[in-house]
């Protein structure tokens, strides 16, 4: 790693001011992504501001019946929190589908949102990459692209956001609370990460100096009918080729409300309101799910390295929605897919 200076922040305002005043500064919390990128010389901060001592490490009930998860809560502590496990099992399942116990013990909520793509060209400083060095090119389009986007990509970048947790948060309609030099604001989850467009170097809609302080979940947790189904090259401890967070609110055999979010397909967790609306009022059967999947994939575009993904995505959506409808969510330890 290149040398850098280091300070610890003791309150949010101080941390935000310190970051805003220094373009070469970064926050560090769990460090599981940032330190990795620093070792590869992809990230080269001059100064790290340690924010792990900030009082953002609690999971609290909100006035509207939801939960507020502090930015410094470790992934493990969300996944095994009693309230999360009982009321938002989709989120717990998505978290347990990602990384390893060691990484989940370090990684924080805020860091999970801010983590960067695992595109191998982004990580390899000897290759061009428009996300790492704007204008240098994108070798993934003609190269190794199994983990790459089929939706919402641009000419410049086909990278995907690697998080599982964020796919669950997207499906649950979370809100990201942010503090910055200009004050605080709330960002709907679907507006937090952005599509690459002409500026793939920009992952989120945060300004430099802004800090994620919490993620708020609305009260509706879909705990009776949900599934998080992740398809990957290894059975565990691998990033998603395709992952699907499915949640249904059932009225008898009829779908009253549907949520469907995908990972491994885009620069952000992917939700399609039209596909969700198309399931509303329909029977929870395979033809309904297939129609929704076709809507999601209508605009899918592939490169030679990921031509298999639309069909894999289609099948994964149908299966995850079927698991949700049946009330038999995918286990994250027994890997058989029922």
């Amino acid at each position, binding site marked *: 790693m290149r040398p850098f200076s280091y300070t610890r922040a003791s309150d949010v305002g101080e941390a935000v001011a310190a970051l805003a005043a220094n373009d070469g500064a970064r926050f560090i919390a769990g460090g*599981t992504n940032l330190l990795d990128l620093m070792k590869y010389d992809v990230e080269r901060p001059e100064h790290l501001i340690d924010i792990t001592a900030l009082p953002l490490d609690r999971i609290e009930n909100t006035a509207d019946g939801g939960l507020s998860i502090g930015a410094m809560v470790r992934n493990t502590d969300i996944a095994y929190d009693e309230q999360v496990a009982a009321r938002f099992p989709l989120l717990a399942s998505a978290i347990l589908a990602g990384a390893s116990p060691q990484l989940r013990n370090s990684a924080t909520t805020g860091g999970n949102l801010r983590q960067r793509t695992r595109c191998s060209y982004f990580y390899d400083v000897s290759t061009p990459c428009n996300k790492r060095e704007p204008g240098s090119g994108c070798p993934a389009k003609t190269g190794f692209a199994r983990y790459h986007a089929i939706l919402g990509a641009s000419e410049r970048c086909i990278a995907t956001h690697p998080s599982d947790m964020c796919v669950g948060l997207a499906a649950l309609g979370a809100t990201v609370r942010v503090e910055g030099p200009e004050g605080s604001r709330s960002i709907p989850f679907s507006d937090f990460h952005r599509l690459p467009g002409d500026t793939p170097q920009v992952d989120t809609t945060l300004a430099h100096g802004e800090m994620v302080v919490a993620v708020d979940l609305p009260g509706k947790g879909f705990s009776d009918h949900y599934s998080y189904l992740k398809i990957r090259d290894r059975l565990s401890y691998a990033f998603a080729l395709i992952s699907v967070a499915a949640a249904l609110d059932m009225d008898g055999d009829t779908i009253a409300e549907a949520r469907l979010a995908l990972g491994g397909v885009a620069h952000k967790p992917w939700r399609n309101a039209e596909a969700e609306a198309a399931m509303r009022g329909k029977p929870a059967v395979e033809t309904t799910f297939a129609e929704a999947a076709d809507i999601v994939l209508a605009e899918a575009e592939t490169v030679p390295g990921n031509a298999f993904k639309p069909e894999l995505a289609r099948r994964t959506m149908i299966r995850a929605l079927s698991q949700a409808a049946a009330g038999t969510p995918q286990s994250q330890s027994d890997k058989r897919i029922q």
Partner: protein
Amino acid sequence: MSATDPAAPPERMPVSITINGNRHKLEVAPWTTLLDLLRHELELTGTKKGCDHGQCGACTVIVDGRRINSCLRLAVMADGSEVTTVEGLATNGELHPMQEAFIERDAFQCGYCTPGQLCSAVALIDEGHATTRDEIREQMSGNLCRCGAYVNIADAIEDVMAKGGQAR
């Protein structure tokens, strides 16, 4: 970097870390990882550097009761922590039950991943989230073994669990 350059980052910062019950007051560079501190500065070479990127688990240690990848933790961020490495598992010359079980089950071949496997397995039992074989395998997925001793590692962990499961 020179001491006369006012813009240069400070080369060393004071930290106090308890490792295997012994308190160490040290000065570390901000960019030193906990793994490198253990191996290079404290000569606790039981903890292994495999990938140095959080992918293999060879560097797993237990910090404040939680297993983590020590290659992805800055030593300055471990200030005030209690760290247990593989050297701290045995007490008074007696191997930890997990170490005994690894020997009994032949749960290693080359041994390079073993310190990380042991720390991870001890923490797994303390966490209490794994009860079935599938859950043990999933909860040990952050520790790779290129010799492929996985079957015997899971056997060893099951043995310790069957004997009451207490880590100590």
